[in-house]
């Protein structure tokens, strides 16, 4: 209980410094993205960079408030915090305002707040709280179900708000579950399902003709190959008891999945969602929509070359060319004006942050803190993965912000809260006995 008065005692300055660096890079990039000669003052509240400066100031205040709290507070109130956020998510569905097709905003005066942003850290807290209770074992079905429900409730509510991007973020909790003992096979199984899904999507539009007479569609061919592989496997493992049952079961499930691809693609997904997947896989070209954005984004990033065009010298990220250049496509500005050096620095900064958080999480004595740390790293990583991947054409165009950098108060505050709760928990690790 020493140094209780000093809220900055024992906090991990490396993490804080990376955070501050990212926030600063973000503000500079927003300034560059919307810069034009007519507006000079950086405090101009009518401009996005002026507003972002305000959001940053408030984010720092939030960070300090979190550091003032006892870390114990977040452990004790994990469930109430989670519950209130769920209520907010329900409320926004009923009375929220619709912005860009997603009904996920509370409009208060000229100011819009997105509760789904705050659901991320709340879910992290609740999951940490649940998984750190005594006698919890990830191997139990009950544990898996309850953990899935904790993650699933906000995910479904956000999906109902028509915000697919933010919903997908909840998939990142799988890293947390994995670290806490979820069988790696489940991860592999997930990868296998995704692989099969993509493969049959790619194949189903092609026809293959054999002996000039038999024509099979690509997914039929895939099914035949899978069946043959299964038959071979059964033959090889014929000495092993019951192996054939497992293999047959796997085969039937795989075939069922391939069958369902059509259905999922045509019926379950919204047309624009299936379109985006098709565009990413190169099945369909959509130069007007998603494809256009990615192409413009690649031109902007590519034109930065090795050292970049220099601060405010970007031409591609100004107005007409790249859409959403201060929010989802902010990375284009960085790539264009700071070149590969800038991109390298930014990617390194993020990966450094993620690894640092894992390192910190692993040194916790409290299981709660460790799990929460992993939740923080996973959520940030997922945003990084999708956002930057989208701008360089490696991930589908899903509108989620780049942590600490993209324009927007709600996302900056929620990422700040997310990270600083962990920094606070980490700073008290010595006090925690268990």
């Amino acid at each position, binding site marked *: 209980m020493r140094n209780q008065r000093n809220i900055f005692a024992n906090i991990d300055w490396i993490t804080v410094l990376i955070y501050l660096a990212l926030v600063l890079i973000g503000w500079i990039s927003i300034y560059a993205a919307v810069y034009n000669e007519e507006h000079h003052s950086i405090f101009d509240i009518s401009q996005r960079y002026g507003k972002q400066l305000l959001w940053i100031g408030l984010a720092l205040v939030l960070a300090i408030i979190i550091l003032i709290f006892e870390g114990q507070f977040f452990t004790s109130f994990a469930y109430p915090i989670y519950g209130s956020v769920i209520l907010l998510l329900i409320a926004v569905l009923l009375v929220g305002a619709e912005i860009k097709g997603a009904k996920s905003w509370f409009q208060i005066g000229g100011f819009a707040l997105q509760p789904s942003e705050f659901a991320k850290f709340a879910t992290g807290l609740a999951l940490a709280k649940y998984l750190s209770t005594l006698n919890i074992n990830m191997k139990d079905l009950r544990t898996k179900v309850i953990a899935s429900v904790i993650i699933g409730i906000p995910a479904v509510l956000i999906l109902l708000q028509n915000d697919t991007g933010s919903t997908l973020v909840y998939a990142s909790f799988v890293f947390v579950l994995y670290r806490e003992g979820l069988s790696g096979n489940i991860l592999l199984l997930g990868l296998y399902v995704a692989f099969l899904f993509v493969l049959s999507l790619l194949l189903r539009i092609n026809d293959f003709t054999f002996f000039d007479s038999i024509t099979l569609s690509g997914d039929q061919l895939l099914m035949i190959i899978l069946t043959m592989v299964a038959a071979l496997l059964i033959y090889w493992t014929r000495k092993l008891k019951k192996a054939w049952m497992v293999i047959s079961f796997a085969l039937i499930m795989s075939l069922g999945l391939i069958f369902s691809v059509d259905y999922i693609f045509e019926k379950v997904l919204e047309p624009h969602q299936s379109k985006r997947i098709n565009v990413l896989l190169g099945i369909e070209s959509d130069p007007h929509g998603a494809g256009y954005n990615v192409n413009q984004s690649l031109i902007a990033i590519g034109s930065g070359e090795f050292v970049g065009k220099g601060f405010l010298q970007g*031409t591609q990220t100004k107005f007409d060319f790249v859409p959403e250049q201060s929010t989802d496509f902010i990375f284009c500005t960085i790539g264009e004006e700071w070149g590969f050096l800038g991109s390298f620095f930014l990617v390194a900064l993020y990966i450094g942050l993620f690894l640092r958080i894992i390192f910190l999480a692993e040194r916790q004595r409290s299981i709660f803190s460790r799990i929460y740390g992993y939740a923080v790293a996973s959520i940030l990583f997922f945003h990084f993965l999708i956002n930057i991947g989208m701008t360089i054409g490696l991930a589908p165009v899903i509108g989620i912000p780049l942590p600490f950098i993209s324009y927007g108060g709600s996302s900056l505050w929620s990422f700040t809260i997310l990270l600083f709760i962990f920094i606070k928990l980490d700073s008290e690790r010595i006090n925690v006995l268990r």
Partner: protein
Amino acid sequence: MNNLNERKFIVGLIFLIVGFVYLIRLFNVQVINRKYKADSDHNVLRVITEYPARGLIYDRKGKLLVYNEAAYDLMVVPRQVAEMDTLGFCDLLGIPYEDFIQKLTTARNYSRYKPSVFEKEISAESYAQIQEKLFAYSGFYVQRRTLRKYPRKSAAHVLGYIGEVDAATVEKNKYYKSGDYIGKSGLELAYEELLRGKRGVKRILVDVHNREKGSYEDGNLDTLAVTGQTIITTLDAELQEYGELLMKNKKGSIVAIEPETGEILALVSSPNYDPNLLVGRDVKKNYPVLSKDSLNPLFNRALMAQYPPGSTFKTLQALIGMQDGVITEHSGFPCIKSYVGCHNHPAAQNVEQSIKMSCNPYYYSVFKRILMQDKSKSIFKDSEIGLAKWNKQVKKFGLGQRLATDLPAIKSGFIPDVNFYNKWYGEGRWAFSTIYSLSIGQGEIGVIPLQMANLGAILANRGYYYTPHLIKEIKNTDTIPSIYRIKNDVGIEQKYFPPVITGMNKVIEEAGGTARRAKIDSIAVCGKTGTAQNPHGEDHSIFMAFAPMDSPKIAIAVYIENAGFGGTWAAPLASLMMEKYLTGKIKDQAKETRILEANLMDVKPKK
């Protein structure tokens, strides 16, 4: 738990691999692959909006009413404007230097990066000159758009006009961008979505010298403009123009309908204006002049002016009386002028004669019977029950309600109901004797000329109507709004129509009829005169008619403001319209000349 501890390495490894893959990709995009860099050099992209040609409008006989003429807007992207020969440029455009500076400043204030209109609607000739030299002025380019033209200069109220979209619409409707044109009134407004077509976008690469380098991405991003749909209206252009000619120097309106379809053949509101006045940049100049004109030419009297129907209403009262069973076609009533004023005529022995001679006391008695059917001992209550029933019946004729015509600016007219008089006089404080002027179509009753023509159509059809409309065909589709295909029954049995219709024929054909001037040789016309009392001046002259009697092809209503008795002006004018439509010519030249030469505009308001 030890093996779980190792999982931190796997998670960390995944993070590292993703970071590494992204860096390889970035190195490829930014350093190795030159394609993106090259693209960005030509990526001075000019987005040119391809405005579709707006749909054409034809009349029912295939005569062109509205078409488009090319015009060119000079656009500027301020950020791309370089050092240039400013004075030469001003010369080229024929604008003073101050204008140039002012226009450029306006554009800059809007945006440095987005194009704005520098000079609007350059004519085709000056466009040719400017186009040749424009390459020398970077940041400037020409965008093509079209202007509406009205070759026949008529039917302004029906066709309406287009104008720049207002900010509120841009906010509400995603399709429109500031500076777009949109239908503001008439058919241009009613069928905006069909007529406007779909805007296209062309992306052109331009190098630093303002030279077009071809289309961007081989034009894959471009969208073709889709031409607006052609519309065929129900109007008969010749009849419409003839109506406008006849109405010269008169205030009022003409509405002609084809009874068996509800198609509007002519819709004249006078005074009118040349629709070409409200085109393009002339709107700014001409609109204020037209809207301040004391004769109010922008006001569409045919749909917006409400007048008491006067004696034309007697046809309807007779039908309701017979349908209610309170009179028969043989009922006769004396002409007792102490009830209500009348002119001198022999007493009407039956419905037919009452229509022919337009006897006011006769209808006083008929309406009294309609209202007071002894449903209650109190005369007040009895009148209330009677009025409620009567109101319901009258509304079936399309009166007192907005007819769902395609033109959006239309009044509903007014048929008083129980509520209205309860508010006016107080409940239980009015009875038949208070409101008897309704019997002859006067008092608190309002009908628009379109509704009056529709009454003519109902009589012609012997009991039904199709909602009057102006759309005949949308080219390349076989549908028009289904509402215009619905037959509206007015709830009067067909057998009650002949006496009224014969009476209406005798109004014109027989001695003692009120509209002898409406006679057309060889065509049996049925009509009814009316005079709408006008508290502000001379009464309005009304005539409602259809012809021929046995297989009606046209129903018509003519209103001439401050022209006095209906038989004098409105009836002959209506007969000219019908004759023109049915035979294509006018036999009685004297009748035509009398109308053409009449100037009823300056009729002094009576004291």
